[in-house]
C-alpha cells in the first residue's frame, strides 16, 4: 500500500443473499425445503477509490444505492466477496452511537464501556475522560444513570465519546444531526479540527451542504457503481439534476395514470349524471360556475413551441391557450386567470382589464392566448380561468381547471424566484 494513502479500495464487489422466506431452524429447513429459495443481489458491482491521508470524502447516492454498504465494508462489519480493502491506522466509526450503553449505569461508567468497544484501553480513556465530559456539556449529569437522560443528552454523550477516540480514519454515517443547532455546530467544528490534525474522514450523508463544506472529493454511487467523482459541488449538481429528472418522470407517469383514471371514471359516471359533466379539458376536481352566456370549450397549457405540456421549468414561459364560444355576440368579456399552489396559496392572478384597461369584444367562437413568464418554484399548481363582464357578472368561471407542475434543478426556496445577483467588493 502506498504510504501516501489511508484507504485503498480496489474493485470491491458485494452480494447479499435475499431469502424469500427464511427458515432458520431445522424444522423449517427440512419441512419447507422450497422456502429456502433465495436470490443473490449484487449491491456493489466493483467499486474502487483511494483516499489520501488527511483527506475527507463524501459518499452520496439515493437510498439503497450501496453507500452504507460501502461504509460497513470499510468498518469491517461486512467483508467483500471479491476485491481488496486496505486501511492504514486505527478506524473509528460513527455509524451506531451509544453502542453498549447500559441504562442503569452512570454517564461516566458508560463512557468507559462505550470507549472500550472502540478499542481504547483504560489508560487511554482516563486521559480523554475530561475532554469527553466537557465536550458533551453534561458535567452536572455525568454521575446520573443514563436512563434519566433525555434523548438529546444521550446522543450528545455518545457522540462525544465517538469523536474523541483519536482515530486515524473516521467513518461517519448520517449522524451529524445530533442535538440542537448549537451542538451540531460544535460537532461540525470539531470535525474540522480533527481533519486539520490529519485524520482521514469518510462521510455518508444526504446533507450535501455538509459534505461540500468539509470534503475535497465526493463520490456519487448509483446501482453499486461509482457514477461520478470529483469536486463535491459539481458532482452534487449532477446528482441533483438526475434526481430531479427521475422525480419528473415519476410525476409524468402519475399524471398519465390519473388521466387514465379520470377517463375511466367519466365513462362510468356519464351513465348516471350527464348534466353535471365537466368538459374533457378540466381536472376532476374543477368547479364551474357562471351564466354560461360565454363558455370555455378548451383550456390548455403550452410551451412556446405550442406543444401541450404538463411540467414547466421555473424560468420557462408558459402559454395559456383558451377557446370559447358564445350565444350572444354583443358582449364584451374580461378574461383572467389565477394560479394557486397545491396547498391553497394564491400565487398570482390578473385579468385583461387590469393589464390593458379594456375588455375584448366577444365573437361566436374565439381563441385567446395568455403568455406569462413563469417564476414559480417547484410545486404542483392549479390554474383558475374566468371570463366576466366589465362590471363583474360571471359568464364562465372554472376553478382548478388544470393542474401543472414546476420543477427546477436550482436549490432556492420560497414561492417564486426573485432573480438575484450577488456583488461583492
Amino acid at each position, binding site marked *: 500500500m502506498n504510504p501516501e494513502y489511508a484507504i485503498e479500495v480496489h474493485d470491491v464487489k458485494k452480494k447479499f443473499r435475499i431469502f424469500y422466506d427464511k427458515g432458520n431452524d431445522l424444522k423449517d429447513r427440512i419441512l419447507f425445503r422450497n422456502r429456502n429459495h433465495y436470490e443473490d443481489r449484487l449491491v456493489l458491482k466493483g467499486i474502487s477509490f483511494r483516499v489520501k491521508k488527511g483527506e475527507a470524502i463524501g459518499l452520496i447516492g439515493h437510498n439503497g444505492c450501496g453507500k452504507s454498504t460501502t461504509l460497513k465494508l470499510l468498518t469491517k462489519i461486512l467483508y467483500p466477496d471479491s476485491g481488496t480493502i486496505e486501511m492504514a491506522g486505527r478506524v473509528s466509526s460513527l455509524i451506531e452511537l451509544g453502542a453498549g450503553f447500559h441504562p442503569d449505569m452512570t454517564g461516566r461508567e458508560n463512557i468507559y464501556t462505550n470507549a*472500550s468497544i472502540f478499542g481504547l484501553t483504560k489508560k487511554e480513556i482516563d486521559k480523554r475522560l475530561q475532554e469527553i465530559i466537557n465536550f458533551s456539556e453534561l458535567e452536572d449529569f455525568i454521575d446520573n444513570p443514563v436512563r434519566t437522560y433525555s434523548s438529546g443528552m444521550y446522543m450528545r454523550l455518545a457522540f462525544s465519546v465517538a469523536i474523541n477516540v483519536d482515530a486515524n480514519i473516521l467513518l461517519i454515517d448520517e449522524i451529524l444531526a445530533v442535538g440542537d443547532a448549537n451542538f451540531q455546530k460544535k460537532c461540525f467544528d470539531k470535525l474540522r479540527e480533527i481533519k486539520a490534525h490529519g485524520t482521514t474522514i469518510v462521510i455518508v450523508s444526504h446533507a450535501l451542504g455538509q459534505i461540500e463544506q468539509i470534503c475535497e472529493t465526493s463520490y456519487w454511487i448509483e446501482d453499486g457503481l461509482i457514477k461520478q467523482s470529483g469536486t463535491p459541488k459539481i458532482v452534487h449538481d449532477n446528482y441533483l439534476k438526475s434526481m430531479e429528472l427521475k422525480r419528473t418522470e415519476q410525476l409524468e407517469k402519475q399524471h398519465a395514470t390519473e388521466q387514465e383514471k379520470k377517463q375511466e371514471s367519466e365513462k362510468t359516471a356519464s351513465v348516471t349524471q350527464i348534466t353535471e359533466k365537466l368538459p374533457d379539458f378540466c381536472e376532476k376536481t374543477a368547479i364551474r360556475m357562471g351564466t354560461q352566456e360565454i363558455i370555455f370549450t378548451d383550456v390548455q397549457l403550452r410551451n412556446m413551441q405550442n406543444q401541450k405540456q404538463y411540467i414547466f421549468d421555473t424560468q420557462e414561459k408558459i402559454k395559456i391557450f383558451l377557446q370559447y364560444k358564445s350565444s350572444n355576440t354583443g358582449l364584451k368579456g374580461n378574461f383572467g386567470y389565477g394560479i394557486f399552489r397545491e396547498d391553497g396559496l394564491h400565487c398570482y392572478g390578473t385579468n385583461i382589464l387590469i393589464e390593458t384597461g379594456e375588455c375584448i369584444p366577444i365573437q361566436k367562437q374565439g381563441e385567446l392566448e395568455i403568455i406569462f413568464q413563469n417564476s414559480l418554484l417547484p410545486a404542483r399548481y392549479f390554474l383558475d380561468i374566468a371570463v366576466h363582464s366589465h362590471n363583474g357578472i360571471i359568464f364562465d368561471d372554472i376553478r382548478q381547471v388544470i393542474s401543472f407542475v414546476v420543477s427546477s434543478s436550482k436549490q432556492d426556496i420560497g414561492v417564486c424566484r426573485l432573480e438575484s445577483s450577488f456583488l461583492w467588493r
Partner: protein
Amino acid sequence: MINLCKELYAYREMIFSLVKKDLRGRYKGSVLGFLWTFINPLFQLIIYTIAFSFILPSAIEKYYLYLFVALIPWIFFSSSLQGGANSVMASQNLVSKIYFPREVLPIAYVTSCFVNMLLTFIIIFLVVACSGVPMNLTAIFCLPIIMLIEYMIALGLALLFSAVTVFFRDMEHILSIITMAWIYMTPVLYPLETISDSKIQKLFYFNPMTSVIIAYRDILYYAKIPDFSTLFIAFCFGIASLVLGEFIFSKLKKRFAEVM
C-alpha cells in the same frame, strides 16, 4: 493468529468491561446484590448435605463434598457452553453496527462464568477446611492448572457453538439437551468406578470433562496430586478445543453481520 492476539490485547478493556457488566448486572436490583454469588452455592451445598445424609444416604464418605467439588466446575462448564453459545446472538446490535474482534463476546462470557466459579471456590475452601478433609498444599498448586485447562475447553466450545448458533438458531436448544445428558457421561454425581464394564469406562475418557472432573476431585476431595496422565489428556483436549473453536469461528465470523 498473532494478529488476532494483538487485536484482542488492544480490546482487553472491552473484555473487562463486558465481564464487569455481566457480573454486576446479574444481581442488579436485588437487595443482597453481589452477595448472592456466595449465598447461592452455599445453600446448594446445605441442601445437598441434608438430602444425601437423610433422604438418599450414599455409600461414599462425605458425599456432599464429593459432589460439591465436582459440581461447581461442572456448572462453570455447562453455563459457559449454553450461555457462550448464545453470546454472539445476544449482542446482535453491536455485531451488526460496530467493528471489534468478534471473539471478544464468547471470551467475555466464559470469563465472567470463570470469575463466578473462582468466587464460589471461596466457599469450597471454607467447606473443605470445616469438613476436616486434609488439604494438600502441593495439590492445591495444581488447581490453577486444571482451572486453566477447563477454561480452554469451555472457551473453545463456546467459540465453536456461538458461531454456529448465528447461522443455525436451533443449536441453543440442542445444546441444552446435550448438557443435560453430558453430566451423566461425566463422573460428577458418581465415581467412575461405578461402571463395571472396563471398556465403557475407557470410553468415558473420550469425554474431555472426565479428566478435568477427576483432577478437581483428586485435588480437593482426596487431597492428592492428580495423575500426570490425567492432566496431560485434559490439556490436549483444551488445546484441541481452542484450535477447533477458533478455526470454525474465524471462518464464520465474516458473515455474522449479514444474517443478523
